[in-house]
């Protein structure tokens, strides 16, 4: 029968035991190291994918920046146009320009016929001004006016000249603000030019308060000095429209022509009016807040 090793023999085997333990720990270490391999590989792959993604994100950020800069470029181009318009006006006023300026303005819209006016203006490459009222049924027409680059002016929401608009400064301001809110809500657009329904004379005794309120609201206002009389005369022909407006317009360096975009006579006369204005050295501009004709 084998006897158990005594303490002296144990001491003899102790180094071997320690070496075996060391080998065991070494082996365990190797297993851990090998076991981490898949995690390492996965991490490596993730790192590569993330770096590729980072490049893609950088490219997309650049693309987004370019797209976001587009409205600013458009605004700069628009600003350049109106700076040129202001310079031209000043030269005409100073008498240093061989040209004159005409502003085609259309009141009381929008109407369905406004689309026809827009078509003619586009064909003639002319920008005009539409003094609009509040008409929720014609949202697409407002949209088209703005999209074509024309100036949209405030002409009050209701146009109730004899029925409340000019009762008091408060009633006037409320009506103007109502159209402001309507345009802001539907088109995120704030007009800067105003025309009094019936002209400023219609405001009578409250004229001064109304003008002050308009200025406080960031508006300039303008009347007209030539008209086709398309809102006054029934059965107006396009010859009549032309004959009424042209002598008045062509006697001025700054001609503000009044028409109404519901009227087919003014529409019919419009191409000839534009052509003859051009022949007489008129440059046609849309109205803008800093224009010399704005008050």
């Amino acid at each position: 029968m084998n006897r158990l090793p005594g303490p002296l023999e144990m001491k003899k085997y102790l180094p071997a035991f320690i070496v075996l333990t060391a080998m065991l720990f070494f082996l365990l270490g190797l297993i851990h190291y090998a076991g981490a391999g898949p995690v390492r590989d996965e991490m490596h792959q993730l790192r590569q994918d993330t770096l590729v993604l980072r490049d893609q994100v950088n490219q997309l950020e650049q693309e987004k920046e370019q797209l976001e800069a587009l409205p600013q470029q458009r605004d700069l181009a628009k600003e350049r146009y109106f700076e040129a318009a202001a310079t031209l006006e000043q030269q005409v006023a100073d008498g240093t320009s061989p040209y004159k300026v005409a502003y085609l303005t259309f009141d009381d819209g929008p109407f369905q016929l406004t689309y026809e006016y827009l078509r003619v203006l586009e064909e003639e490459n002319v920008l005009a001004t539409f003094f609009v009222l509040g008409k929720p049924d014609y949202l697409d027409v407002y949209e088209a006016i703005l999209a074509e680059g024309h100036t949209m002016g405030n002409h009050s929401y209701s146009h109730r000249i004899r029925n409340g608009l000019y009762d008091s400064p408060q009633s006037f301001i409320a009506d103007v603000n109502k159209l402001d809110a309507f345009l802001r809500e539907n088109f995120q657009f704030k007009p800067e030019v105003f025309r009094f329904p019936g002209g400023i004379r219609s405001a009578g005794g409250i004229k001064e308060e109304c003008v002050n309120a308009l200025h406080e609201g960031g508006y300039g206002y303008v009347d007209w000095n030539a008209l086709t009389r398309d809102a006054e005369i029934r059965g107006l022909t396009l010859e009549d429209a032309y004959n009424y407006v042209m002598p008045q317009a062509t006697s001025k360096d700054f001609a503000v022509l009044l028409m109404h975009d519901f009227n087919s006579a003014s529409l019919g006369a419009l191409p000839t009016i534009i052509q003859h204005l051009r022949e007489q050295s008129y440059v046609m501009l849309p109205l803008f807040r800093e224009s010399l004709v704005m008050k």
Partner: protein
Amino acid sequence: MLWHQALSTFKKNPPLYIAIGLLLLALLFYFPSLGREARLEDSRQQWVQRHQQMLGQKNTLAQDIEALSQESQQILEESQDWTRRAEELESYIIEDQGD
């Protein structure tokens, strides 16, 4: 002196001290391997997070760009229109000839 003491101790039982040395070396290899695994896992988690973050950022940007692209063509055309109109209008302006 210390070196002499250590040498005389070693000479008393060389196999034992060699074995102890080997054990220490094995332990030095083993214990850091435990920590290494944990560190690798932490690192992997961080890369997973970064990857997901980048992926989210990429998707958001792609959506933003898609939305912007729909309007961009129209804005570009408007920009070109205003530039053309400005150039045309500038042709009517009399250049300052100076004194």
